[in-house]
């Protein structure tokens, strides 16, 4: 299994996708720092402390939101052809005929992709939060737990994209996974609106989309962690808008997400074991 983890890591580092992602991430972090600096400069002259208490956490959650988008795009693009692409190109023929089980191939690749995804997500999270801390002086709550939760996103997406890659051709898999991810993002926003407007129909729609694809719940959990809602009287204002989290995803929802992740991985192994190469 280790051989596939190593080879997957090496392969990712050789791909243009990795270089492009690094380049885009650096640009993103630079722009984010510039925005933060301008916001901080403006806040210094403002006398209203409420604006400062609300604006900086909102900039933090916005930074994490776009960070989660970058992480998702990287995780999905890196995984979308990991099995199907190698089957289509013929690379898999000699690999599968080696003295390894198909489960070892899937799990080894999963570990490699998850590892690089975790490293990327963690660096991005640290980049955004360190920028906020160093420029504005605001502290980030539950730092380690939030970091770990944020790093769960690429692992989750690698797992479901891998299941798709075991079952579908590369293009179809990419379209389906991105559609599901978009559905999850829209569902997340709908859920926020539903909570503010107390609309039960919208809330159920949001919950349903989260159950179909709980990727957005991971992000909402992170925002709930980094902004200490319990001890912040302005939490309702801080969490207003598409980047906030009006209700913290429950422990049950997070458990569901983890079960979903392992179920998708199990499915990937099962499908790949049974399919003709």
């Amino acid at each position: 299994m280790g051989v596939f983890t190593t080879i997957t890591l090496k392969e990712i580092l050789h791909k243009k996708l990795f270089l492009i992602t690094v380049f885009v991430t650096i640009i993103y972090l630079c722009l984010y720092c510039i925005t933060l600096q301008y916001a901080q400069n403006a806040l210094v002259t403002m006398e209203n402390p409420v604006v400062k208490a609300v604006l900086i956490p909102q900039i933090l959650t916005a930074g994490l939101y776009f960070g989660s988008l970058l992480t998702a795009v990287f995780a999905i693009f890196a995984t979308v052809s990991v099995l199907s692409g190698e089957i289509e190109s013929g690379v898999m023929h000699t690999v599968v005929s080696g003295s390894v089980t198909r489960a070892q191939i899937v799990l080894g690749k999963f570990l490699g992709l998850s590892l690089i995804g975790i490293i990327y997500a963690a660096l991005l999270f640290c980049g955004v939060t360190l920028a906020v801390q160093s420029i504005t002086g605001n502290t980030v709550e539950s730092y380690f737990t939030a970091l770990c939760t944020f790093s769960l996103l690429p692992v989750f997406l690698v797992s479901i994209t891998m299941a798709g890659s075991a079952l579908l051709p590369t293009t179809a898999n990419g379209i389906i996974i991105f559609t599901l991810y978009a559905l999850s993002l829209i569902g997340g926003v709908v859920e926020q609106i539903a909570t503010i407007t107390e609309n039960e129909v919208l809330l159920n729609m949001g919950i349903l989309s989260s159950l179909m694809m709980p990727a957005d719940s991971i992000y909402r959990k992170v925002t709930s962690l980094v902004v200490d809602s319990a001890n912040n009287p302005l939490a309702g204002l801080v969490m207003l808008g598409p980047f906030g989290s009006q209700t913290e995803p429950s422990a049950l929802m997070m458990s569901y997400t983890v079960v979903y992740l392992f179920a998708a991985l199990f499915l990937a192994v099962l499908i790949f074991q049974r399919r003709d190469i």
Partner: protein
Amino acid sequence: MGIVIETKGLTKRYKSGAGCFNIDLQVPQGCVFGLLGSNGAGKSTLVKTLVGLLRATSGQATVLGKPLGTVAVRKRIGYLPESFRYQPWMTGIELLDFHARLRHVPAEVARRRIPELLEMVNLRGKGDHPIKSYSKGMQQRLGLAAALIADPELVFLDEPTSALDPVGRRQARELIIRLREQGKTIFLNSHLLGEVESVCDQIAVLNSGQLVAMGSLSELRGIQVVLDLRVTGISDTVKSELSKLAMGITQVGDRMTMVVREPGVIPLVAQLITNSGARLYELVPRSRDLEELFFDLVQNGGC
């Protein structure tokens, strides 16, 4: 001599209806076994089923005495697929090292074996070049080396010379013969009749997914003899008499070809022609070549 591959009613049927059906095959140890068939005959399907890439629809099969697709068996086989492609970002050495690790070859053995194999497939000095810089033929040579990295007992080669130039083809044939001399069994899938004829001890012919013939080349040829004649002034009556002695007869101008069951007929043919007053300039007996045999099997469904 043991049996390395044995199949009984082995069938792989795709959703489209194509595949290979009811294959009963026995491949003896230490031989070069050629699988012939036209494009789409089911050759690659059969090979992929035997190496465990495809799941058989029905039937039974053992490879090296074990059921198909088990890890224990795959450790002892090498495989060069028809549609080969390797990780373009790797170097040749990295690819061979990867395949050595896939087949649990000890690191020190791999370190010794990789330069030997690169030398064997004529890629010496190219091992540290990235595969994306290799030509199709070089990639096929590298694939041959990868198939042999674990020193397998049984090697499946699916169209191993399709991308090679004439020199490369000759070297591949020599390599196959060398492997046989080392006691290895080679399962050669090819539609190049000359290649099969020159190296194979046993041949099987697939047509539309069905096994239509199997045996040694001499067994398949039988004792039939082909007579190439040059004759003039032959009458229809004589021609009719000749066709009674022959299994098949064709004539274009003064050239006539007859297929007769056994060499004892040859004097009778000569006597019949000369006694009739026709002029016999040439009568050359020869065995049927593989091409004639193949076309007979594929187009007419049998000898």
